[in-house]
């Protein structure tokens, strides 16, 4: 196997060539913050929280940057800390994230991230957009107020379930997750009611109907287990 040696935060390690810096760092016990990344889904490098400084080059997204021989990676610098806090602040400013009345309170990756990056208050003014809630699906709901557009739901539905119910509509600040051809979720025939999108949602945007605060069953880790199981069953190609 082709391997390469690199240094991440002064820890020397050797990984298989082509391993992403995010995974390489995890091997070294360093958890780089991320929101859009999820093991098992194609990385998109969209949330920019996993930015790291590589040698003297500008920040690179660790989820889509392959480890290379002799690389020197810094995962926690003043610049990166400021970028990360700013990004989380931007997300809080952009949506309507009211933890106290959110189903995901206590089990929310955005909330955890805010604590992690030291966001004790938001320096950016809130935008308080007018957003809708889609409760047309018999089992699940989608609250656009809490969506951070990580596109995990889009990818899991397309890549794992193969239904491609979700996509992103519009652009810029008007971006919105859409079901089918921007239809009510319940009206989209291709939805198989599998609930994978709900499981991978980092916030309370996608949720089981009927659940309330405290019992938000978000289990992003189950995706990796599912894919492992599938691979075992299918055997080598």
């Amino acid at each position, binding site marked *: 196997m082709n391997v390469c040696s690199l240094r991440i935060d002064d820890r020397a390690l050797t990984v298989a060539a082509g391993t992403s810096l995010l995974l390489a760092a995890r091997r070294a016990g360093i958890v780089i913050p991320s929101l859009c990344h999820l093991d098992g889904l194609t990385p*998109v490098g969209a949330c920019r929280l996993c930015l790291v400084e590589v040698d003297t080059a500008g920040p690179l997204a660790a989820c889509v940057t392959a480890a290379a021989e002799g690389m020197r990676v810094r995962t926690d610098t003043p610049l990166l800390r*400021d970028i990360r806090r700013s990004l989380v602040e*931007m997300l809080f*400013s*952009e949506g309507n994230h009211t933890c106290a009345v959110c189903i995901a309170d206590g089990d929310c990756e955005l909330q955890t991230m805010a604590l992690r990056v030291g966001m004790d208050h938001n320096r950016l003014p809130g935008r308080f957009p007018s957003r809708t809630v889609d409760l047309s699906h018999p089992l699940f709901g989608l609250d656009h107020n809490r969506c951070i*557009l990580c596109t995990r739901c889009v990818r899991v539905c397309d890549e794992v379930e193969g239904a491609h119910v979700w996509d992103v509509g519009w652009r810029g*600040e008007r971006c919105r997750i859409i079901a089918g051809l921007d239809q009510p979720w319940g009206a989209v025939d291709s939805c198989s009611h599998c609930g994978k999108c709900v499981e991978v949602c980092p916030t309370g945007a996608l949720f089981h109907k009927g659940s309330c605060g405290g019992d938000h069953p978000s289990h992003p880790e189950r995706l990796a287990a599912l894919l492992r199981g599938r691979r075992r069953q299918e055997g080598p190609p």
Partner: protein
Amino acid sequence: MSTAATAMLRVCTAAGCRSRGGEQLRRHCATAATEAATEAATEAMAAGAPPLRVKGVGCLGPCSDGPLLAVDAEDTTRLFGFAADQASGRARAERVAAGLQQRLRATGSAPAGAELGTWRPPGAHLIPADDPFLALQRRLVLERCGLIDPGELDDALAAGAYRQLRAVLEQDDPAAVIAAVQRSGLRGRGGAAYPTGLKWQAVAAMAGQRKLVVCNGDEGDPGAFMDRTVLEGDPHGVLEGMAIAALAVGADHGFVYVRAEYPLAIARVRRAIAQAQRRGWLGTAIGGSRHGFDVEVRVGAGAYVCGEETALIHSIEGRRGTPRPRPPYPAERGAFGLPTLINNVETFANIPVLLRLGCEVYGRGTKVFSLTGPVRRGGVLEVPLGTSLRTIVETMGGGSASGRPIKAVQTGGPSGGCVPASALDVPVDDASLRALGTLLGSGGLVVLDAGTDMVDLAAFFMAFSREESCGKCIPCRCGTVQLELLLRKLLARRGTAADLAELERLCAVVSSASLCGLGQSAPRPLLSTLRHFRPEYTALLNAEAGQPQAVQP
């Protein structure tokens, strides 16, 4: 052009002059010429003398004087404009056509239009050939633009189109072509200024049976219309460049991606492709060789970000036009997963010229600019790289037309910045402009006079980037919103020194954290105006704003 015996009227029917009635002018003049020829033939009982040729051509240059009309007669060419003419397009066309008919009638059966050497279209003013706007140009990319009828392949062939492609086919040595491009030092003309030869080499080195060549014509910077001019004026030059590139890198299929806002360019490129296919310059076995190269047009759907190469690839594939992280670069994995060579319109148009002239004569090459704003003479011009901005703006453009002095020149659109009047002696090349905190960009030059509020200008460009952000990554999607809000707050005189500091901090976050070039360069117009015109920002600060209000007892 050596049209010794006959005479010709060339009327600009490209988008700019067309909007001022260029096409009407051409039609009316053509009718007048035909009628005059018929009359002459009847009178002389001769077998129809050939009518004066009236040709619709691409851009003639000084668009601000449009509609433009060139009269070729007796070995001289005179260019006329109608800048001071207030008449409607139709009234003007009728007046000029009547004048033309009268003139042709007066000379009876004389060879068509040979006596037009002294004719001045009524209401027109002469733009002398030694006018700096014309005389200081070096037209390589635009060599045939304005001379040939872009809808007629024969016209282009007579002027030398596809001659270099034939030479390359006869030589059949792709490595030599790439070496020549590399030796020339040609850099991408779309804004990023990446060495073209290096890109070609990377694509040529990729394994794989199928490769693609893509021409990026998604020109979207406000005030930029160079690529439109090239596509409208000489589409065959671009197609020839693409075909040569395809041979060099081993591609068999190509796309010309043109934004939907350029309907005339789209129509002319489509027509040019069809004509070239009929004559065997595109399609299977081009020029009778063993190589094939097919080209199709893809029309954008109105997103600025699709000028970014990975977003453009997604758009060609029929997907949502959002960028993706690089690597892999398109050279490795581009459209439909195939190694893809993406170059700008002007870059491809440079290829046949540089192969014909050779590196020595070609030199550093040229750059096409579109000059707009309050200058006396604006339009499309092509000058040697390294010409000073002052020469372009003050000598060729004639300086300010508004009576107010020139304050700055905006280059590079929403990804670029401003060159203050004090630095106008900067030579136009990528390195010099980058040192000033702006970009050469794709070639849009917007002149700003002393009446321009630079903070307002920064807010305009930030609003543009906010509107055009694809929304994929957080810093660009949310950061451009926050930056525009802060600028509006300053403009409303509600901002404080803390807001200004926050503005600069957020600029750093957006430019260093964004996924693609659009986000990374979105703060540049703001940072550039802050660098050169900081007092305008500080003058807007409000010391009282943000202070707690005194509570009345």
